[in-house]
């Protein structure tokens, strides 16, 4: 099932939640909508599900107009951030719900429903919880039951709204891997919303980065990380150093001092220079594009995180390998291994 979204606009009062969004999702894809809160990603997901209606634009499934159908007719599996399990029903009845509410003409008999629910509970590896109630389950278990419930109706599309947002870090990591292998197994077109970049990069085939109701970049996890299309994407994904620079006639300068950085003869005026923290290489003073004094050093697992006051007046944080120890008070040279400059 391919999903096509054209020029979607949604306004809540004076707030533009979606501001002209175009997106095509290929059949069988696992797509991540990534962005900060308020970027419109959940609104987009809810409109695709039929839980919200756009003020303008089109949504089509395999070329047919989805907006002509209600949520009920779209056959979309939706997994909510807070699970939304039916609290008065057992796990078994939760999963069976979608099968039991089908119109009488197409409803399966009880034995078929039981077999199907059993199959789904096996799929999410929780068949031993069938008689429990949602309040007796852990967060991770609830989320897997919510997924089994959504899959019961054999959805054409699976939508997940911050599926792991309410879980603790360890469970979240396990479920990520599990979701990816589950998607591999059932291969239904899936979109999940997240504000966690690591989650998006690790799980999805393609990542859509959103901000302020617009799509900033669509690409593979490698694309959005290695070649961010906009200043926002660079700043949002990965830990970046952001410096306000000027670019005139191929010369990049920070606070009026030219830096030894190539800018291919460009003139952009006021710009932003982005460097990943770990791409800032430490060398002896005078060796790099920047000079600075180390203010403060902390060890963060495999790297040492140093606060460096640049001679231009800015203070930045870098992640340096721990083979050469930095000390507060050291004067060092810094050279970016890779960097990107965005106008504006």
């Amino acid at each position, binding site marked *: 099932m391919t999903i096509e979204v054209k020029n979607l606009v949604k306004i809540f009062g004076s707030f533009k939640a979606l501001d002209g969004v175009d997106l095509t999702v290929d059949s069988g894809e696992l797509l991540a909508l990534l962005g900060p809160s308020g970027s419109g990603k959940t609104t987009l997901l809810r409109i695709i*599900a*039929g*839980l919200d209606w756009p003020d303008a634009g089109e949504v089509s499934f395999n070329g047919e107009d989805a907006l002509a159908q*209600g*949520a*009920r007719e*779209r*056959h*979309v*599996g*939706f997994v*909510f951030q*807070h*699970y*939304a*399990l*039916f*609290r*008065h029903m057992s796990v078994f009845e939760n999963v069976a*719900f*979608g099968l039991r*509410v*089908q119109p009488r003409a197409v409803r399966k008999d009880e034995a078929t429903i039981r077999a199907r629910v059993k199959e789904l509970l096996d799929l999410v590896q929780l068949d031993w919880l069938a008689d429990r109630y*949602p*309040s007796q389950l852990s967060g991770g278990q609830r989320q897997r039951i919510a997924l089994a*419930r*959504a899959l*019961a*109706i054999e959805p054409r599309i699976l939508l997940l709204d911050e599926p792991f947002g309410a879980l603790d870090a360890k469970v979240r990591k396990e479920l990520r891997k599990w979701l990816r292998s589950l998607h591999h197994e059932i291969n239904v077109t899936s979109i999940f919303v997240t504000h966690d970049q690591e989650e998006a990069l690790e799980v999805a085939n393609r990542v859509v980065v959103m901000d302020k109701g617009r799509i900033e970049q669509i690409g593979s996890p490698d694309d959005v990380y290695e070649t961010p299309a906009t200043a926002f994407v660079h700043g949002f994904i990965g830990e970046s150093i952001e410096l306000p620079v000027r670019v005139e006639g191929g010369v990049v300068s920070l606070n009026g001092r030219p830096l030894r950085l190539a800018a291919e003869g460009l003139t952009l005026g006021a710009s932003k220079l982005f460097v990943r923290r770990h791409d800032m290489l430490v060398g002896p003073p005078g060796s790099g594009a920047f000079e600075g004094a180390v203010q403060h050093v902390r060890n963060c697992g495999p790297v040492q995180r140093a606060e460096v006051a640049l001679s231009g007046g800015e203070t930045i944080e870098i992640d340096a390998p721990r083979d050469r120890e930095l000390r507060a008070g050291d004067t060092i040279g810094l050279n970016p291994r890779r960097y990107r400059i965005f106008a504006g």
Partner: protein
Amino acid sequence: MTMQIADSVSLSSPEAKARAHAAAARNNLRTEPRAVRVTIISLAIAFLTVFVVMPLVLVFAQAFSKGIMAYITALAEPEALAAIKLTLLVAAISVTLNLVFGLVAAWAIAKFDFPGKTFLITLIDLPFSVSPVISGLVFVLLFGAQGYFGSWLRDHDIQILFAVPGIALATTFVTFPFVARALIPLMQEQGTQEEEAAISLGASGLQTFFRVTLPNIKWGVLYGVLLCNARAMGEFGAVSVVSGHVRGETNTMPLLVEILYDEYQFVAAFAIASLLAMLALITLVAKTVLERRLDGGEDRDH
């Protein structure tokens, strides 16, 4: 780590003493001296005895003052039986109406956003803030002989005032906040996600309501119905205005109690009053049970 543990072990006994002192001081802060405590508790008990327990006991003492036979005879009077029947009928009508109204109003307010929502919430509380006598008078103004619909009703030979419909209407008006009030906060807290989940799973509106919404609020519904019923059976002011006090026809139990008392038929008056008192006691017990259910049934997700 090991150093810290060793430290705390070697310090443990003096530290424990200091901690015990600190705890005692803290307890003293929160606990009044014994004399003050005894005085306050005695005052509270004395007050409750005089103002709550004694009246309740007196109702039953008076009712049974001429023996159990007199009590039963008083209740078996045709006038008493008629009042009991009328009260039950009126309560049944107004509870049913308010159940439907309360469900619809709470559903609309908790699950949807629409202009005038705050106004509707305020309007629901109106019967609580208006004196019941005025509630009754409003119906006289509407349906009375000189009233707004009075002549039309007379032309069509429809009797509302001084008859069952008028009593039921006044009672319904006075008791209509109970169910809605019990449900609105409950439904607001539960949100709309379960309903959204149900619809995305293919459930129709009715299926969603009966399979998801209603089971989630059933204890709240019972709670509202219980309070609504208690008030409907006990309502005096509004009913007194619209009833007309036709003996054996339009007297509800509270009205009959007053009439019998005015006629110095104390045993009969208190016999009926004792029924209302029992209703109150049963309501209290049921209310306690339901409140426990409502607390226990709360969502523990968040």
